[in-house]
């Protein structure tokens, strides 16, 4: 079924967008894919370069086994087929950031085949994106254009770094879905430890294939597998933030629709998203149409994996986000929404689980996902860097559960704990924030307020919900420390409502 909210209205009627993504994820490794030079960020120009990376005559590639393992681990995390026999191919083209004149990649026999990713949409529903393949390949170097007006500078530090290219099927229908998919892939990679997911450093970036078709085209494509039901696609290269992915797709879809509605034709081409101009533009002219002349790299032999080795990797996989979500819901009775928020970061989920031991899980989840998340975000910290240990959240919730403090006081306690004044119990004691459970004191306050407001007290008989005003007054009078349950009980008794 075509979700109407995904449609774009053109002058001649509604259109559907269809997207497939190629995510390039830098493999977490110490050394490069085919050389012993270091992988890293921030070194001086060409310092992390071996003569293999620089493509010197007679230099030969040797394969980093850890990168292979990371690709297999990722494949398993994507519930994908692991190909026990794969092969490296050369993709030939000339560019100053490509020292060998070819990129070693895997076209014909990738290490990982088809898989599947379950993605949460913003409305809490799930959709599935098919993974076409995952292959290993080399990254290119970096061109620097702004150091000289007439020349470009080449830094090969990145050249030869291992990338996993994860190619999805064209299963995404809106910019939001595309972004949710990338987020999900990123979460899985980070859980697996196979990529740090740092988009700012370019360690995870996406090529977005966008096409538009008339309503119904996508359904026909899904039913038949026939790509002719989809429009001609354009590939937007190297988009490196969630915001830009969404903007680029919106722009590109509009651009294509305009061309089609003017009776034009879409050229299959590679485009670049320019965030400053907010538009995509063509990267290579048509006569430069690429012919990469892929062929098996004769410097390398087929890559063969043993089932036992794959099984060992499988056995070492961590609990993945989907499993964790399901377990958090069943083990802690959390809502899907809460579980989804918690698993978005492994450290957040871990933090929650540590704090939730023996406590009211829902309450812990609220504190973790609301108050603490907001504080950490404001300080640009993630949960693994939280200055507040999980034990403090647990203690805070314990104080609420024990009735020592109210939820309202808890917020104040939290502020003091965050400010470094000690554990929640220490703060409560030092600042005398203990909840008033002394019924006599509460009764006294209630009687005074009723006596001072006889008209309001009379009105409550007809409008029982007006009791809220009295509760507020009592809490105010007791400095917020009165046990709300006792206040309610006493007020009801005094005002004569049941």
């Amino acid at each position, binding site marked *: 079924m075509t979700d109407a909210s995904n449609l774009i209205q053109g002058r001649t009627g509604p259109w559907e967008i269809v997207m497939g993504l190629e995510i390039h994820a830098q493999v977490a490794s110490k*050394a490069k894919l085919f050389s012993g030079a270091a992988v890293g960020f921030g070194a001086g120009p*060409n*310092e992390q370069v071996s003569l293999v990376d620089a493509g010197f005559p007679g230099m030969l590639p040797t394969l980093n086994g*850890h990168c292979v393992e990371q690709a297999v681990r990722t494949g398993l995390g994507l519930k994908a087929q692991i190909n026990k026999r794969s092969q490296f191919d050369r993709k030939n083209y000339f560019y100053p950031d490509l020292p060998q004149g070819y990129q070693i990649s895997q076209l014909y026999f990738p290490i990982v085949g088809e898989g599947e990713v379950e993605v949460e949409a913003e409305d809490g529903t799930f959709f599935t994106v098919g993974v076409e393949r995952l292959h290993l390949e080399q990254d290119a170097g970096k061109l620097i254009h702004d*150091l000289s007006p007439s*020349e*470009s*500078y080449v830094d090969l530090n990145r050249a030869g770094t291992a990338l996993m290219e994860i190619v999805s099927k064209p299963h995404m229908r809106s910019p939001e879905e595309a972004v949710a998919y990338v987020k999900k892939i990123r979460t899985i990679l980070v859980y697996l430890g196979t990529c740090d997911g740092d988009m700012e450093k370019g360690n995870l970036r996406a090529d977005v294939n966008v096409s538009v078709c008339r309503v119904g085209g996508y359904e026909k494509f899904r039913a038949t597998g026939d790509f002719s039901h989809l429009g001609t696609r354009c590939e937007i290269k190297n988009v490196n933030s969630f915001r830009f992915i969404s903007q680029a797709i919106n722009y590109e879809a509009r651009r294509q629709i305009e061309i089609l509605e003017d009776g034009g034709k879409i050229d299959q081409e590679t485009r670049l998203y320019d965030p400053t101009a907010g538009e995509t533009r063509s990267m290579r002219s048509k006569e430069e149409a690429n012919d990469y002349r892929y062929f098996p790299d004769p410097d390398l*032999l087929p890559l063969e994996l043993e089932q036992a080795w794959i099984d060992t990797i499988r056995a070492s996989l961590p609990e993945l986000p989907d499993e964790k979500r399901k377990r958090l819901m069943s083990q802690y009775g959390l809502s899907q929404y809460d579980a989804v928020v918690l698993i978005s970061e492994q450290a957040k989920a871990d933090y929650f689980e540590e704090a939730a031991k023996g406590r009211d899980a829902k309450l812990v989840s609220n504190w973790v996902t609301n108050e603490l998340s907001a504080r950490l975000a404001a300080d640009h910290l993630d949960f693994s860097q939280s200055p507040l240990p999980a034990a403090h959240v647990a203690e805070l919730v314990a104080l609420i559960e024990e009735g020592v403090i109210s939820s309202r006081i808890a917020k104040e306690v939290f502020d003091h704990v965050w400010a470094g004044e000690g554990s929640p119990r220490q703060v409560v004691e030092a600042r005398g924030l203990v909840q008033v459970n002394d019924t006599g004191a509460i009764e006294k306050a209630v009687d005074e307020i009723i006596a001072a407001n006889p008209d309001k007290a009379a009105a409550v008989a007809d409008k029982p919900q007006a009791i809220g005003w009295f509760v507020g007054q009592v809490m105010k009078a007791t400095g917020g420390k009165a046990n709300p349950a006792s206040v309610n009980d006493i007020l009801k008794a005094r005002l004569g409502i049941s």
Partner: protein
Amino acid sequence: MAIDAATVRKVAHLARIKTPEDRLEPLAGELNGILAWIEQLNEVDVDGVEPMTSNVAQALRLRDDVVTDGNKVADVLGNAPQSTDGFFVVPKVVE
């Protein structure tokens, strides 16, 4: 599959080899001669034959993930036609 001057121009560009216009026809002639001779491969029955990419009947060896190379900027740039401040220098690349 005869090659004409236009094909030679296209392929020479793919190979990034500047080829003067007056060389295109002669080159096409030479290439056609070679390719016509190569056509005899079509006589061979290759049904079900696995393409042979290597003489070495072993699997690829895997290297340990250790840093053993790099930090040799002088070597890397030592033969460069042009370099500055640790970078290779090339004509302005317009993207």
